[in-house]
């Protein structure tokens, strides 16, 4: 069937010149071939490189944008870390300062207390000494005054009998000793 068809077609084709569709027209062959090569040259030289360049530029632009964003992000993170470090540093520094101040204050207080105590002791000591000295002076003064007063009184009472110094001295001493003894027995009784 197929053969019959083709042969019929061929017979029919033979009635017309160059009607066989498989037989190429060499001019058309040449024009299409050369036209294709010219177009290929144009594409290689101008069209394809421009498309590739645009494509490449776009890739770079997009990747550049991404890289920039990443850089900015990294920078921000670094800044944040630095700030945080500074913050914690200053916190520890403040804590240390506070601790130091507290210690210093305690020391100052202790020193002041010590000083005050020392001063108090010194003042007390001084007062004691003063009082002791005054008492001694007063006792000495009293002893002398009481002696002379008593002697004077006794001589006025007794008269000239008591002019002898040595004897009167002995009497006074004995009197005073008696007085002392009396006082002591009184103190002991108390």
């Amino acid at each position, binding site marked *: 069937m197929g053969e019959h068809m083709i042969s019929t077609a061929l017979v029919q084709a033979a009635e017309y010149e160059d009607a066989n569709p498989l037989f190429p027209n060499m001019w058309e*062959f040449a024009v299409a071939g050369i036209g294709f090569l010219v177009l290929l040259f144009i594409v290689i030289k101008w069209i394809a490189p421009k498309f590739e360049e645009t494509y490449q530029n776009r890739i770079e632009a997009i990747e550049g944008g991404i890289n920039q964003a990443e850089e900015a992000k990294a920078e921000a993170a670094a800044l944040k870390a630095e700030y945080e470090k500074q913050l914690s540093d200053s916190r520890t520094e403040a804590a240390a300062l506070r601790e130091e101040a507290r210690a210093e204050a305690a020391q100052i207080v202790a020193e002041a207390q010590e000083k005050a105590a020392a001063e108090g002791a010194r003042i007390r000591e001084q007062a004691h000494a003063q009082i002791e000295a005054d008492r001694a002076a007063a006792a000495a003064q009293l002893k002398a005054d009481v002696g002379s007063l008593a002697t004077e009184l006794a001589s006025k009472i007794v008269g000239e009998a008591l002019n002898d110094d040595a004897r009167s001295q002995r009497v006074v001493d004995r009197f005073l000793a008696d007085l002392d003894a009396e006082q002591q027995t009184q103190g002991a009784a108390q």
Partner: protein
Amino acid sequence: MRGPALSSLALSAAEEDGFQPPTISETHLPEIFPWMAEWGTGFGKNMLMAILAVLLIWWLFSAGIRKQALVPGRGQFLAEGAYAFVRNTIGRDILGDKHFKPWIPLLFTVFFFVLFNNLFGAIPGLQMPTFSHAGPAYAMAALVWITWVVLGFKLHGAKFMKLMTVPSGVPKPLLIILTPLEFLSNFVIRPLTHSLRLMAVMLAGHIIVMLCGSGAEFLITQQEGVLNTGLGIAILLGSVPLYFLELIMMVLQAFVFALLTAIYIQGSIEADAH
């Protein structure tokens, strides 16, 4: 059946001075510059179409990418999409990431040259797919054939012939039959099928267009009767879906032609891989 039936119909019709179906010869239009016929057959519409395709592709894609904007406008977006289709779908997917870059221009030119020339068949007024003639189809297939053969010998030396004709892992006695077959299939039949597939599809589409047109015209204007006129109008209406089918065939054939080009080149690059 259809061939003889049609021709007998035509013959009987011719006797009655009736319908004359268009012949293949009529796909060869009269020359535009007949005085060139001294050296050949003159400068015809077919050649004009081929040159028009070159100029159109040049102009459209140059205009599309002129600005090289990072954020493309509509024209550039379309041009880049078309370019990326060939670059990625035909080039990268077939040839692989490593090899496809240098072949982009060739594949791009093959695809769009065939596509534009095919689409001329669907544009009223032009109505002429360049590759419905054997000459241009042979020229394209020949250039592709030369490319992959030269590339193969360049990459693999004389061994390329062995790689293309002696299948590996086949018992020796069988090679006596297989080697000539492989040679025929790869070096002779391959370019023929490559070109004839394109030519035959385009020619068939073109003949259908002629047949529909002339048949409808004959039925409507030359024949008496409502039935014949109605049939003519039905043919015209039926040719609308046929037109879209033809559009699909035109794009598909361009794609297949470029895809096969890529596959042949890939076969040359990796002839020793299998």
